[in-house]
């Protein structure tokens, strides 16, 4: 009980000091600044300096989400490959995977981010993007459709663009997805009832693709390509997905760094599956592939998932380091906004709330996945 009292009074003392100090420094303690104009432009973004701090934070949140989503997918794929590579009986694959893991695991992620920024862009072979120097343009062979535009600072890639009737098309696709899931459940039931092969993936994909193709043709091509082109002024890229060096550097770096951790988790999880399981599979005369597919991997995923979720959360948190490659995600924007005279305590509180929200959303989704994988009453 004494501890509670001590903590209570300490907290009260700290907060008292804070409010006194803020008052004496003339820093506002309300939240009105959120609606005031930001007063600065964001690099490579159409953001209007007259927009409010709220919209500035929104840009930051979207940019953080952009790093996290691609980074997580990259880290998972790369990490799985390298994790399995570390278990390979092929000596050279084994040692190269080990080299990868031991290198990236033991270097601070910040150094890796800076390194990617340098290696790919500052010292990379790409041309400078400016009105006087043309960037490299990769076109689709035989046509003049731009697939990608690359340079030291700006990059653009071909993307899908919504056209006429695209809204209806996406609604139909959603219905198709529901149909595919229903097909999946139905095939699983058939398999359970009769024992015949379920081919769930084949059937479900079939439904989805059929719906997509029919809807696409019936609606008269609702989607099109958007191809990146250099603007007339030669300063920005119009169309497609436009991005910059900072985004590529941070996403690749985080993907590569987190992959080294995921690789160890995957390897450990596979090793943690009891040896008897593998031997039992052998006794049942399952092939090597079957043994992995039906016996080892399902159990390994169950063991690995909680730790992998933690790595995803780490990746989101590490995206705050994009500040060093000048990519305007939420932390970088917060820091700039504080530098521009917005009250630090409130800004940082918001920043923390954003990351907590990110963590909550990711783990909410993944914990549902996790629950499906965990055995009940183990």
């Amino acid at each position: 009980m004494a501890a509670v009292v001590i903590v209570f009074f300490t907290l009260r003392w700290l907060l008292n000091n804070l409010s006194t100090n803020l008052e004496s420094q003339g820093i506002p303690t309300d939240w009105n600044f959120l609606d005031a104009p930001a007063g600065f432009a964001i690099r490579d973004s159409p953001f209007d300096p007259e927009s409010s701090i709220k919209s500035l934070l929104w840009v930051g949140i979207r940019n953080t989400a952009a790093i996290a989503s691609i980074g997580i997918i990259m880290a998972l794929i790369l990490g799985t490959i390298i994790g399995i590579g570390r278990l390979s009986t092929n000596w050279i694959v084994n040692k190269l995977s080990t080299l990868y893991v031991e290198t990236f695991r033991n270097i601070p992620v910040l150094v890796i981010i800076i390194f990617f920024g340098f290696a790919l862009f500052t010292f990379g072979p790409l041309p400078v993007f400016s009105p006087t120097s043309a960037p490299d343009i990769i076109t689709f062979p035989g046509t003049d459709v731009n697939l990608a535009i690359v340079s030291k600072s700006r990059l653009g890639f071909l993307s899908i663009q919504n056209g006429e009737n695209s809204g209806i098309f996406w609604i139909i696709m959603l219905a198709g997805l529901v149909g595919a899931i229903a097909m999946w459940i139905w095939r699983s039931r058939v398999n359970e009832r009769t024992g015949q092969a379920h081919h769930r993936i084949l059937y479900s994909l079939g439904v989805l693709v059929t719906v997509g193709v029919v809807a696409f043709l019936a609606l008269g091509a609702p989607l099109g390509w958007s191809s990146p082109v250099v603007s007339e002024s030669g300063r920005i890229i119009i169309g497609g997905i436009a991005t910059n060096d900072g985004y590529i550097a941070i996403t690749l770096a985080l993907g590569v760094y987190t992959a080294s951790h995921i690789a160890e988790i995957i390897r450990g999880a596979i090793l943690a599956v009891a040896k008897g399981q593998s031997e039992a599979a052998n006794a049942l005369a399952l092939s090597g592939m079957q043994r992995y597919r039906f016996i080892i991997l399902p159990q390994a995923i169950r063991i690995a998932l909680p730790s992998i979720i933690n790595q995803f959360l780490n990746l989101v948190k590490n995206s705050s380091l994009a500040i060093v490659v000048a990519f305007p995600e939420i932390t970088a924007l917060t820091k700039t906004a504080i530098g521009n005279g917005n009250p630090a305590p409130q800004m940082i509180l918001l920043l923390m709330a954003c990351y907590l929200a990110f963590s909550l959303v990711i783990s909410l989704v993944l914990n549902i996945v996790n629950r499906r994988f965990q055995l009940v009453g183990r």
Partner: protein
Amino acid sequence: MSMDWGYTVEPSEGGSEIMHALAEADAPRHSDKSAGKWVKDNLFNTWYNTIITLVFGILAAWGGFKALKFIFVTARWEPVAENIELFMLGLYPRAEVPRVVVQLFLMSGAGGLIAGWLKARAAATAEESGVEVVKTPIRDYVGSYSALVLFMMATLIVGADTIGPWLVLLGSILAAVTGFLATKPLANPLTKIILLSPLLLAAGMLTRVQDLNNQAAYTIAIIAIVLLVIVNLSQSLTLMLSAGMLAGVAGFQTLSGTGGLAWIFVLIAILPIGLELIAKLTERLPAAAAWVGAAIVAAALVWRATVEPTGVVTIVLAIILIAAVIPLLRGDGGLAMRAGGVVVLAVLSWAACNAADVTGIDWSDWGGLQLNLVVAGASTVLAFPIGLLLALGRRSSLPVVRYMCTAYIEVIRGVPLISLLLMGAFFIGFFLNSDTPLSSVTRATIAITMFAAAYIAEIVRGGLQAVAKGQTEAGQALGLPAAKITRLLILPQALRAVIPSMVGQFISLFKDTSLLSIIAILEFLGVREIVHAQEDFRGFGIAESLVYVAFGFWALSFTMSRESQRLERKLDVGDR
């Protein structure tokens, strides 16, 4: 029933299984197949393996060639070579470099003593329980330390233009060896001479190195020699530990000075041997002596109260006095004896620190790799007690305590370190009522400590959960109160189980200190800013300096993580 924030993953859920499997798989194995058979089995056993081997072999050879060519031919290491002191020490005042040398020697000696203590303790435990000590083969040490040695050699070869730095390295190694040897029981005088000679050499070198004040060097050397001889003669485990910690504290204080709080560190260092002595003394003295202990505490309280009525020390003393007197009235004087003894030790260490009176270098002047290590170490040490309390609080039966601890841990674990560092940089000072602004390094250390405490709390909680429930029940069956069950039964087992994770936490903090460069502190990575601001190196050798920094971080982290894996196998935490 604990509060579930939705995004936490229980530390024991999956994580420990994975760690254990990895530890087992990474245990060194030595095969004795013939070379030809090995190549056939491991590289060309199937047709697709042959293809993979060829493709990756060529890729690896090409990559290795490129890397070697970069390191030895094309790379321009001048920015690193000319600024090696900046990389190691930042803007640390150059006239005070001898202090760093002394610190290195003392820290190495501390490392040797602690290593010797660990070894002796393991041997004692093994003898008690009748099992054999597992000897670590020398090649395991080579595997762990080769990265560190490589980094030190690279640094010295590139950066040392005089023989001085090499002598410092040699002296540090000798100090470590001496510290280690001091813990060994040695029979004949010849070995004792051999034991002392490296120390004398190191002491001699202390006086040779640059312009260190000779008197100070001799004082340090004499104290060290006396201490080591006593350690060697007594062969007491607690003395080894205390001596090691004392050397470490002394090393730290040569830089940061002995004013202010140094006596607390000294007190903590001598506490193990001090408590042992007090316990021995208690056995011999009559029970009434406990009143003397209480009187000592009371006297100290009166003295502090006259000097500083509302000071922290006064309040702590008052609490101790009350806590000691209550059982004393009921006839249990153990606590009063210990309290009195500790107060005497505290006064002694305070007096010793006052007598030594070394003015420190303000640590806003520290920098380079030194700062990374110190900040990581200081935050781990400071965060440990906080984390321990948080972990215990999270398991408390009081809902208010439990919710507060859980909320703190989960919020801190959910936000990135940089947000805390920004908080430190912009407004942590506002929480305090002080007129003098805190230095940026202090603010960063507070932020990192807050951060580390939450992670350490989760590690400790994992350890607490790993202790079998039967232990608590056994304690209850013996009629022990809850506090004693936690202190005597649960914590020792839990903390032993978390040692490897704590090392892992230190490594990760060490890597995280690179973030200090973002808030403009000149640590190992941040130093590059001023290196490349120099006229000669503007935009020159940028990649090279980054590679050097990355290699430094890598070598230290790699060696530490290898050592922690070895420790884990040695403690065999997973098998319990």
